[in-house]
């Protein structure tokens, strides 16, 4: 073989090896690894905060951001825990905390709080604290939250001469207004829908004194008259009253419809407020509490900060958690107005109540809803994820929409399915993966040995050479 080819081959190998080692990442153990999800804007905010933190701390406190895609975030952390690779600080949704604690993934932060005189858990909104506890112990610290509210187009209400929604509104009031706000063109096609309440189904179930899971979160009890009434009402909005569009369409275009003036009322969280304000006519939008049902209930999403029990830098992680939930940290992270800070001193100040992204909006309504709120979308426990519950609820609503059965019959199917999942998770042993185990290495070595033995015995030969 000519020297030129050998030289080229060696050169390519050296270059590849150099590139390989050059690209090798830093040793993760020298950082406090912080895991979060979020949009590009949110990630940029976190990165700014971390840069600021790193610039003012010693090297052993340096933090590195680790980003997970939102839809698979929970599952990703569970896989990381199985691999012994959990980030030191985890940004979590409170609904996941019982599951993570049951798997031993979170550090008990109660001792840290007790011995750290600079930290006071009472500085945070009391309604958020139960979401950070499992039993009597704190496994997390509140960071931010969002409550579901009713956004409405003020111009539409003014034009129809309807009073704006307020805290006295019931679902009947909402229906009456929606019927007046719905408009059809000459062909009878709906040109403007009255309302879109898809995100409020779970809240409506709670308001009707229904529950998806029982109090101990180990059994599905959704097949109740209250839940069936809630599902029937949501279905009737589109199928009977024609004031909303069918959930069968499976689309997520409602925000754009609302911003474009083709929808008058929508249930949504705080995360939508800055976008609505940016997109719509100034002053034409406001927020009100969700209508009342039999009980006063709302829906709240709580985000919390936890330290991984696997962390080798727990004290440093705790220091970073404190910074994340401090006034300075919360100001930096809530600049985009898409969430509500958990710190009392901040949330009851103009920093939130006159937030620069929603200056004309009734921001206090988000706070008024919190004490009455249940976990949104679902309180999931340790045997079933909210995606299972969400999928099953959507299927249940679809069966009713398609006229296949009554709401109660459909919810019974959901109940059986969810209980089946719970049962399978209660009884199934933890899977032990074969690949990567000692057994897999032994099998691989045996196969390689056998192969080498055969090659040495018979020899590699070219065709025609004998």
């Amino acid at each position, binding site marked *: 073989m000519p020297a030129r080819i050998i030289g080229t081959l060696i050169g390519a190998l050296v270059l590849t090896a150099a590139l390989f080692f050059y690209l*090798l990442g830093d040793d993760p153990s020298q950082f406090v690894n912080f895991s979060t999800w979020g949009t590009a804007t949110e990630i940029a905010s976190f990165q700014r905060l971390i840069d600021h933190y790193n610039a003012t701390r010693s090297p052993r406190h340096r933090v590195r951001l680790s980003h997970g895609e939102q839809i698979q975030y929970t599952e990703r952390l569970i896989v990381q825990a199985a691999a012994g690779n959990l980030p030191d600080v985890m940004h979590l949704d409170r609904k996941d905390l019982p599951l993570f604690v049951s798997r031993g993934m979170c550090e008990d932060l109660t001792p840290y709080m007790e011995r750290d005189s600079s930290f006071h858990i009472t500085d945070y909104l009391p309604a958020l604290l139960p979401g950070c506890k499992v039993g009597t112990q704190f496994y997390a610290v509140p960071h931010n939250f969002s409550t579901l509210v009713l956004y409405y187009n003020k111009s539409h209400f003014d034009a129809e001469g309807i009073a704006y929604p307020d805290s006295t509104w019931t679902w009947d009031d909402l229906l009456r207004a929606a019927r007046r706000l719905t408009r059809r063109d000459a062909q009878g096609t709906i040109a403007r829908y009255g309302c879109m309440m898809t995100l409020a189904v779970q809240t409506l179930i709670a308001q009707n004194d229904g529950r998806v899971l029982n109090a101990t979160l180990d059994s599905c009890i959704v097949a109740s008259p209250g839940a069936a009434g809630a599902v029937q009402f949501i279905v009737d909005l589109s199928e009977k009253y024609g004031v909303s569009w069918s959930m069968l369409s499976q689309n997520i275009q409602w925000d754009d419809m609302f911003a474009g003036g083709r929808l008058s009322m929508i249930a949504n969280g705080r995360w939508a407020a800055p*976008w609505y304000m940016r997109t719509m006519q100034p002053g034409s939008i406001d927020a009100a509490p969700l209508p009342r049902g039999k009980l006063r209930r709302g829906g709240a999403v709580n985000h919390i900060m936890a330290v991984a029990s696997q962390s080798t830098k727990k004290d440093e992680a705790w220091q970073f958690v404190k910074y994340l939930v401090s006034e300075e940290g919360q100001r930096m992270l809530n600049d985009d107005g898409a969430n509500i800070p958990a710190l009392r001193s901040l949330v009851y100040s103009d920093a939130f109540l006159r937030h620069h992204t929603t200056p004309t909006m009734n921001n206090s309504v988000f706070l008024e809803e919190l004490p009455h709120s249940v976990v949104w979308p679902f309180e999931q426990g340790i045997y079933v994820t909210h995606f299972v519950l969400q999928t099953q609820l959507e299927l249940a609503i679809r069966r009713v929409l398609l006229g296949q059965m009554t709401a109660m019959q459909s919810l019974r199917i959901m109940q059986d399915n969810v209980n089946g999942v719970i049962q399978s998770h209660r009884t199934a042993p933890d899977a032990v993966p074969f690949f990567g185990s000692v057994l897999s290495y032994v099998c691989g070595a045996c196969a390689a040995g056998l192969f080498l033995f055969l090659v040495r015995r018979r020899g590699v030969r070219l065709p025609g050479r004998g």
Partner: protein
Amino acid sequence: MKRTIPFTLFLYGLLLVLSGWYVVPFCWALVTSVKHPGMVFDGRWLPYTRAKSLDVGGRMVEAQVLQELGDSLVVTLGGMPGQRVVPRAALESVSPAWHNYTDAWRIVPFGKYFLNSALVSLCITLGQLITCSLGGYAFSRLQFPGRDAVFLLYLATLMIPGPILTVPIYMLLRQYHLLNTYQGVILPGLFSAYGTFLLKQFFQTIPKDLEDAARIDGAGVVSLYFRIILPLSGPALAALATFVFIGSWNDFFWPSIVLTDPGMLTLPVGLAHFNDIYMFEYGRLMAGCMISIAPAVLMYMVFQRFVTRGVVMTGLKG
């Protein structure tokens, strides 16, 4: 069999409808990428924008649309009682929202993601060309015990669904401290049973006489590979390169598992940053999609005939 004109017309019509099945969603995405917020689902193909004020007797008055009525709009005018019906043209005009592209570029560090995607895709493509051509050469040209059995075993790995291997590969990468590194994304993609099969099939079509002649001149195994096999396999290598490049450029799942540092993300993973679970900014999202697929589309346009040939050679789709 000679085709009749009606049959040919029918065939072309059918193909046209089928191609529309794929083209229409792409066109929708393209148009949406220049639509304004609030106008994405207005039921029209062109990107309209709606003015927030109306010229009334030479004075600009704030206008709020209450309802759309075909070619007209029902509006209220600031400071004036009652509602009015005005032609759509008075408030709406066709105006592409090019700013979606600049916004997308500003919000997400596309430049960095482009480089990351290019690095990962090029390394995987080059790596697969090397490993698959070596494997294909060995399986098609060398004689050694158990060759066909090993090849069948290797080919059988195509039957294993990718997600099953996720956790074991993840654990292996962790053991070797390759998580959150480019190598962690690249290494599992360097070897492919499909690529080896494709090249083996092609190498078998190269006449053995050429090898025999080279062997008489003193060429060895490696020399044959470099001097005879590779130079004659340009089309097959180009087909494989195109398949692999497009596949790795568009890959979302594996990079999203391995990479956690926001500065190291590839384009498809970075694009997910536009989305909140409950909020979609369609205009910017589609603009980002258009930016991200541009290199893959370009690659396909340049190497289209090789891709077609690759499909014909193996009977497999990339």
